[in-house]
């Protein structure tokens, strides 16, 4: 059929109602689709907000639990000088005072430069980074118990140095001990740990 022969009025009369119904249905569909899209977006936004809040709550709970469990120990560590900068001066002074108080025949100490302490059981993110300075002691002892007393006093010093290893040897096993001279020699390695605050680490390494 050629276009000029089409009776548009006839066609319009027959299709008007159906076309209007289709238009109305299409409008309804378009409207509901639009509203559905908006509702979906709103729901997604609210879900995202909820996820964020739940993560925040989880973190808050975690912090609260961490605070409950670790705040007291942390405060004690801070008071003991473990947290923060190294207490090298206090440790050296405590070592000297202990040696004098115990009247050790001799004591030599060497403190090595501080460096990062690495161990497989220290997991970044789970544990804080640790710095360590090794303190080597060479001792002359009258009695072996002097070693325990000396180490006990040093370990109570700020920074709470830890004993890594020791060796103790009788100088003359066949001779009776003399209270006025060294009967034993000792050689100990102590670790002077310090755990700096993360803010201090960031300030020291701004590029990280």
């Amino acid at each position: 059929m050629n276009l000029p022969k089409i009776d548009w009025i006839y066609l319009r009369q027959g299709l008007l109602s159906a076309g209007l119904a289709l238009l109305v249905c299409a409008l309804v569909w378009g409207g509901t689709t639009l509203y559905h899209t908006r509702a979906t977006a709103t729901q997604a936004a609210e879900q995202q907000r909820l996820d964020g809040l739940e993560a925040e709550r989880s973190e808050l709970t975690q912090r609260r639990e961490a605070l409950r469990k670790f705040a007291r120990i942390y405060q004690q560590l801070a008071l003991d000088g473990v947290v923060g900068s190294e207490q090298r001066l206090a440790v050296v002074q405590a070592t000297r005072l202990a040696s004098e108080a115990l009247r050790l025949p001799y004591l030599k100490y060497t403190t090595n430069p501080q460096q990062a302490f690495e161990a497989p059981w220290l997991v970044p993110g789970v544990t804080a980074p640790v710095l360590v300075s090794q303190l080597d002691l060479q001792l002359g002892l009258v009695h072996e118990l002097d070693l325990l007393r000396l180490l006990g006093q040093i370990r109570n010093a700020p920074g709470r140095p830890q004993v890594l290893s020791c060796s103790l040897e009788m100088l003359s096993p066949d001779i009776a001990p003399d209270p006025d001279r060294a009967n034993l020699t000792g050689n100990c390695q102590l670790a002077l740990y310090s755990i700096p605050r993360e803010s201090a680490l960031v300030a020291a390494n701004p590029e990280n």
Partner: protein
Amino acid sequence: MKPRHVAYLTSSEVVLYTWDNSQYVPVSGYELPNGDPTPLVSYLRQTPSAVIAILVDVLEEEHQQATIARLGRRDQRAMLARKLARAFPRTNYRNAAVQGRLPNEPQTARILLSGLTKAEHLGALLGLLAEAKLPVARVCSPALLSRPLVDKLRPASPADATLLVSRQREGSLRLTFYRDRNLVGSRLIRRSVAAAPGDIPRLVRQLEESVRYFDAAFAPSATNPVDVILLCEPGTEPTAALGTGHDGFRLLVPDPVAAAAKLGLGTGAGLKPGNADLLFVALLRQHAPAGDFAPPADRRYFDLHRMRVFGRAACVVLAGGALLGSALNVAGILRLTGETANIQATIGSLYREMDPTSPSPDLYTADPLEMERIVRAWQLLEKHVVEPRDIFSLVSAAVDANPDVRVDRIEWLPLQAVTAATADSGSAADEQDGEPVESEAGTTATEPAMDEAGAATSSPVFRLVIRGHIQPFAGDYPLAFMNVRTFMQALRADRRVISVKAINEPLDLNPRSTLTGEVTADLKTEKAGFTLNILVRAADEPA
């Protein structure tokens, strides 16, 4: 599309049949040539979307058989149009039908050209219907509709030729001639001339004359008979072979009910005595005619009507789809609204839960998570050191149990440090003794100790090396060995001890090594020394 209205046009009248209650019933009409068609058109206007068909049953219907060569569809259409124009130059109401190939000439097709040579009344009717914008689907004649009658009603062993004889409503006779199931021609015998119902001899004469009219070369005889199917003849009982007095005509009068069933017509339609018009009207609803006389211009509103129908169907389908989509959207909106409300309620409860107790960061001297990391690091550091007091208590307990054992040297260090030292230059004890180091099992001391430690415990492990001697020692090596063994046993009794191995004993009893010694009077210079390698667990936990 099946027609709802059928206009039956004869030479004297137009009768309008309408499909009502499963049959066609006459509802309107007008006389020709001067009748008023207005009531008929007005009636049709009441149902403007109903499809109309026109059956033309007039004298001026002509048929011509011809042949054309086999052509493509487009060329064949053009050839048929040319032949039609040549055969019926003065009418637009003409039709060409291809009837098939010739039996002996497969490249030649037989065609039938049909035309209404005088169609003023038909033209006027079509003009009225077009003016009223009514859809006329087709214009055909009883002859073009009669093929199903031949197919369904002829006898089981049919003759080559079939003659359909039907009594029309006006009383005229319509004769339609078929050869080999192909329409050859059709003619109408006026009521005034047609044989009266029951006048068989006259009917036979008219049949003979008609056969000569249709095919002058065809001579009906006993060996070349013609099946004559007599339809809607009043006063004639149904019979399979009615005697006519002529051997060339086998007259058949089908049972109206059985014939209607064969033709697929309703029980109330068709084969009414004296009204074959209704038979053809009913046939028009069930069977497509062999051709259509209406030119495309006269089917214009039918084409538009089809467009409207298909358009409406498309609109309905699309609107239905849109409504379905809308319903799904509404269901989705309701679900989403509910879910959003639940989420918002959860958010509100979370806010209420968090707000009053949320500690301000200012309250902390440090981030609690940082506190945790620092404390955990320190706890691990403490876990990996050993208390000197524990080492001393371990050794003291063993020495107290073995007063003949004198400790000359004691050394402890973490196993990692031992490993590093071993990798560099061997264990400290090895260096001091300067002797081959053999364990009780005859292997080197360091490696099995490490393996054993790794398998035995997960807590930090330290190596403790004790060097000592047995005093008093009067050269009694078995006693010295026994004292060393007892000392080792006392060490093993401690739960923290993983293993105790002797790496140096008063005598080297290894069968693979050389043992030398000297016996003198001065036994004071002899000494029963030993070195033990002990692995100790830092934490006091069961192995």
